[in-house]
Every structure is written in C-alpha cells, then in structure tokens.
C-alpha cells in the first residue's frame, strides 16, 4: 500500500474523525476555560476521571448513556474543585492544575483497583456502535466518512457551531469573553467574574469528562490506566493552534486526528521501514510545526492565568 493509497481510502478519513473527536471535546473544554481566563491544566486528570466514571457506571448499570451522564457530572465536580482553588482562593493556576491532574489520576487508579480488583482479563463493556444516518450516509464518500459514526460524534458535530454561536452571539458568551480579557472591565459593567469563571470551569470539566468517557464508551470498550496518555496535554496545544475559536479548534483537532490515523496506517502497511516510535511521534511533530508557524498570529485571552481579586485596585 503506498502513501497515496492510504490517504485516498474512505476508512482513513473515518478513522481520522474517530481519533479527532475526543481531542476536539477536550479542546473545546480547554477553550471554554481559557476564554474565561483560567488555564486548566487539570484537563488530563478530568479526562481520566471521566473515562473511569463512564466505564464503571456503564459496567454496573449496563447503560452507556448513564455512563455518559456520570462522566459529565464527575468532570463538572472536578471543575468546581479547580474553581474553588484558583478562582475563590486565587492559587497559582499552573501548580494547581497539575495538582488536580495528579490527585485525580491517583484517585482513579485507587478507585479502579478497589472496584474491579486485579484480574487477568480486564472487565469490558459493549461500546456504542456506529449509527448510519438515513439518507446522509448514502452520499458518496462524504456519507460513510462523516455520517456513519457514533451518536456521541454527532453530538460533537453540533457542539462546535453551538459553542461558536454562544461565544459570539449571546450576552452570556460576550460576558465570558470579557471576563477572560479584562475581569475588572467585566465587573465594571455588572458581570460577576468569579461566578463566570466557576461556571466556565464546571462546563470545561463536564466536556473534559465526556472526552475521556468517549474513549472507552465509544472507542475501546475497556478501561486502562494509560487510556488518556497525554491527550489532555495535546488539547492545550490544539487550543493555541485553533486560536481560541471553536471552528478553528475543530480544524486543529481534525488535522491531528488525520496525521495520527495516517501514521497508524503507515505503521501497519509496512511500506516504510522505520522504528515505530518515529511514526508515533509524527502527530506531535506536525502539531509542533503548525503551532510554531501559527503562534505569531494567535493571541491568548489577555487575562489568562491572572487571578481576579475584587478588592485589589
């Protein structure tokens, strides 16, 4: 199989989307947090917690959708914890975010061992299956790529324009952006920056939890400790690449997903004789290059990482 054959395959594009969706959810999560002025380094931990909450709930109740709900709720709860630390107590966002990730990781490992023990055959669930959308999935090429996906993926399709609409067309979205740019200006026009940031972090947590749950509820069907393996950190770079805009972030996630799908196929095709680690590095290298090229045009929210203290002049 030549490289051209890989790219011209319908399966390649469908795989690119499957790989991109959890990254896109995580990227939108980080976008919401950063637009409010908070750098959420807890995202990696939130995704892992969401993955376990989704898997465990689905395993116990047998309902995948209850698993989705559990992931959303646990993510929002960790978001609230993060907000308590960085918004109310105004702790350093970098250190706190890393702390939240480490604490969540430890608790997830502990809870998993407690709940599932150590078995030779890891417990599994039957993950979501793909649902071909009537009519749309019959469109040549586009149909099988875009419209033969999981239900969660269709929700994500709607989430991107919905978030863009929210940010740029609604008063609440304008309030969120104002808080992220200049919380003092926001307070001066009657917006409560603290409330805004707490809500933003809870929403970000819910989205991150969903991103984690997607991985085992839709993609893998089982839980492993390495299930997130740095996807949260990738989302931090993808937000920069997507310039804090929902559609551009979708593009960034798709680009990463496509390069990832490409390297997977390149590895298995055996047409290029190189150590597999080099293939694995390909998406990261691609992201790095695009971020470097793109950074000069990107501008982070002006108040990112700046705690808001109402009594401070």
């Amino acid at each position, binding site marked *: 199989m030549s490289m051209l054959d890989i790219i011209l395959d319908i399966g390649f594009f469908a795989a690119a989307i499957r790989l991109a969706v959890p990254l896109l959810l995580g990227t939108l999560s980080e976008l919401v947090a950063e637009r409010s002025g908070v750098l959420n380094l807890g995202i990696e931990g939130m995704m892992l917690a969401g993955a376990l909450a989704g898997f465990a709930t689905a395993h116990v109740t047998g309902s995948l959708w209850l698993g989705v709900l559990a992931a959303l709720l646990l993510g929002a709860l960790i978001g609230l914890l993060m907000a308590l630390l960085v918004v109310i107590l105004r702790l350093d966002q970098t250190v706190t975010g890393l702390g939240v990730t480490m604490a969540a990781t430890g608790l997830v490992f502990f809870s998993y061992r407690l709940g599932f023990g150590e078995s030779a055959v890891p417990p599994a669930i039957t993950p979501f299956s793909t649902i071909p959308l009537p009519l749309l999935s019959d469109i040549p090429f586009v149909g099988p790529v875009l419209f033969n996906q999981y239900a969660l993926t269709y929700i994500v399709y709607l989430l991107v324009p919905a978030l863009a609409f929210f940010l740029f067309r609604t008063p609440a979205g304008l309030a969120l952006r104002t808080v992220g740019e200049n919380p003092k200006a926001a*307070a001066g026009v*009657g917006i409560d920056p603290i409330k805004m940031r707490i809500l933003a972090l809870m929403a970000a947590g819910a989205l991150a939890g969903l991103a984690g749950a997607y991985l085992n509820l839709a993609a893998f069907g089982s839980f492993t400790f390495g299930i997130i393996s740095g996807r949260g950190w990738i989302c931090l770079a993808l937000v920069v690449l997507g310039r804090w805009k929902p559609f551009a972030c979708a593009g960034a996630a798709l680009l990463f997903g496509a390069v990832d799908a490409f390297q997977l196929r390149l590895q298995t095709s055996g047409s290029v004789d190189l150590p597999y680690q080099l293939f694995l590095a390909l998406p990261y290298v691609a992201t790095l290059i695009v971020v470097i090229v793109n950074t000069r045009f990107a501008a982070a929210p002006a108040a990112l990482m700046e705690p808001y203290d109402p009594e401070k002049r």
Partner: protein
Amino acid sequence: MADDTPLLALTGITKRFGEVVANRDVDFTLRPGEVVGLLGENGAGKTTLMNIAFGLYRPDAGTIAVAGKAASIGSTADAIALGIGMVHQHTHVVARHSVLENLMAGLAGRHGLIDRAAALARLAEIAAAYGLGLDPDQLVGDLAVGEKQRLDIIRALFRKARILILDEPTSVLTPQETEGLFSAIRALKADGVGVVYISHKLNEVRAITDRVVVMRRGAVVADAVNDGTLTNAGLAVLMCGHEPERITRTPHQTGAARLELAGLRLGKATQPIDLKVHGGEIVGIAGVSGNGQVRFAETIAGVQMAADGTILIDGKPTSAGSPRRMQQAGLAYIPEDRLGAGLVGALPVSDNMVLSRFGASPFAHFGWLDRKAMAAFAERQIASYDIRPPDAKLPIGLLSGGNQQKAIVARELALKPKVLIIAQPTRGLDVTAIAFVHRELMRLRAEGCAILLISDDLDEIFQLSDRIAVMYESAIVCAMQVEQATVAGIGLAMNGGAIEVPA
C-alpha cells in the same frame, strides 16, 4: 433647584482596610443636575468612598440612599441597576473587542441574543444628546486614551446612569480633550444627571463644579458651594492641612550641551530626533501618554536599542544599548514604572539603594558583597532623604509610592550624574512628596546637571522646565523656551497639530 431629594446620599460611611481607616464616618450627598468636586490628597479616601457607592467595596458601617430610597449595594450590578455609573482613572476596557462589544458586555440582550441594532441606536442617541460619539466597529485597542475614556462614559450612559462618578478623568487628557469632556458634563448636568468629579487639579474643579467636598485622612473636612469665592490656595490648605510648598524656577544661565541626541530614531518608521540638553537646564517632554515616551527614555538610558542615530554625553558618543555603559558615561535614569523597572520590591531598602552598582567597590571586594558598607550607605541615604519608615531591612515594596520614589532619587543622585532622565517623577505622589522631588530637581539643575523631564502632567512641565519639547508619534515635533510656550499651543502639538513659534 426644584427637586431637592438627593440622587445619592451616603451617611456615616466607615471603611477599614486592615489597620488603615480609609473612610471615617463620611457623609456625602449629590443632587440632580449637580456637579460635586471631591478633593483630597492621595490616600484621603476619595476613591474608596466612590468605590463603595459603586458596589466595589462594602462599607463597614453607614447607609446609602439612592433617590431618597435606602439602597443595599452589594455589587457593581446592583449599583448599575440603581443608575450609578463610574469611570475609573485607568479605563477598564477590553482592548481586543470592538467599541460595540465593550458597550454591550453585561447587557441582557433580546431573546437570548446580543442586540446589535438596539446598541447602535442607543450609541447614536448618546452621540446626539451629549456630543459623545465613537465608531462602533473600531477595535478599542486602537483608540486614543481620551477616546477610551469617552467609551467608559458612554458605557455608563448606555445603562441610563443618573449618577456619574468620574475619578481623575483629565489626568490623561490634553487641554482640548478636557474642554470636550467639560462640554459633555454640562450637557449631562442640563439633563439632570448628577456628576461626582474626583480630581486634584484645582483649576478644573473650580471651573466645572457647583459644590466642592474636601477629604483629609478619610474624613470630610469641608463641604462648600462653589460660588466663585474658592481659591486654589484655600483648597490646598484644606486638602493637606497646611500651606503646601511650591517650588519655583528662577531663570539662570545654562552651560554647554551635556546630552545631545543626533538623528536618534526610536523605530524604523519614525522621524529622527535632534535635541540638546544643556548643563543646568531642564527640558520638559510633554505628550499624550503612549506616544513613545517610555521607549524614548529607555533608548537614551541604554535599555533599548535605537533604530538609528547617536547619543552624545559631554560631546562624546556613547555606545548605545548598554545601561551600564550609559551610567559610566554619567547618565542616571529614573523610570516611570518604579516597582516594575526601578526597584525590586521583595528586596530590602539597603539592597535597592545599591542596585545599579553593587558589583564594584565600595560595595563589593573581589566578588564578595560588603554588607556592612551597603547597610551604612543605606542608613546615610535614609537619614538625608528622610525615607520612612527608616528601616534599611524592610522590603522596599512595602514603602509608600512617595518613599519609593525618594529611594530611587537617593540612589541615582548618589552617582552624581551629568545627565538625568526622569519620567513621571511625581505620578501618584502626594503634595509633600511632590515638593521634595521638585526641590531635588532644582538642586541638581543648580549644580549643572542636564535634566530631561518626561511627564504627562502639563502643570509640572510648565512649572519646572527651561525648555519644553512635545513628543508625538515617537518624535519631537517642536521645542521652545518655556517663556514662548502656551498651554493651548502645547496641547495642540500633543494632538499632532501644527504650532506657531514666535520668532
């Protein structure tokens, strides 16, 4: 006045910040169509009082009534709902949003969407009623300082403010912009809006207000109708409790050129600067902030590289782009951002006192710091410059702005400079500290130092300078003897207008 119910009545307001009492049992009223001047030195509690009225702070004691009804103002949202608007000294705007986005932020919108059409209509309405207009789609970051302030005022009116609090509104404006602000205030007044005008520019307060309230150390010390009998001197005595010292300049013979800028260009696209500052001469650089003053000062001080041109001290060319070598050539630099660029806040006063020369004798020997020599030097400087509290071990960030400035002045003057660059020397200082800094500058002038004084405060420029130059878009657009300069003429040049210099 027909309606005598006060728009705003603050009664018995007390506010403490830790040990400090910022407001002590303060009463304050504002009636419809009235402009009340709120005067006081820095730290007198003017801004604190108005921040309480605007819901930014909660008072420890006291009551607030708006239009005769008792009001509980727990947040700015409450204050806005009650028709109170506040324009801060430093504008609070979002630079990367458009004018319209800034105006619409915090508004409820319609059917859950932001209502652009209604906002445009309201903007046009305000422009027609008060002569306050702006381009709705312009990026706020591109606006001039005066326009940003106008945006703040429009934003308050947008929310139907009947009480408008202006905190030192003219500190960044040119004389022409100030006149524009005054005509807007008169239109608001005619419309029944009450305006609180916080300022320490006494001439302006006497010109625009109906009544003047003076605060000192957190309490109201005077509340007087502005019936034309108020004088600057009388108000100043009320503000600081004693006759303030005013430093005056006596003309004297200046020497040879000590600092010479030849074809100095700050950026690749800016005009070259040619300027000479002579021994015993103070050249004041006037200009609207943001016209390259910081870059100008830093370029001469060697902090930044010039795009082109040379800097000569006593006729000798200097090597640009090295603060240390400029210092060795005899230049001292006192930057406007004291804590950011002039001092290390967490280090003690003694270390800050030798910050520019701790590497060599007498403060270091063979690479080892001589702590004793540093402490002795600091003690001497603290005593002779009356720096308070007199504790060399205290982190300098804990000192007041005035004492921090004294410390920098002490440090830089100990170098016995041939040339001094000093930017915004009295920004944020109270009357006593201002007199101290001005006196030191005069002493240095008498000793033959060449002084480049960069200031936003036109009064200060006129008071101290032998010559005045105007900086506009990173270039010097005109320079003249102070005797030939007028406030109106300099103000025009600050806005980029042409100026006629009498031959």
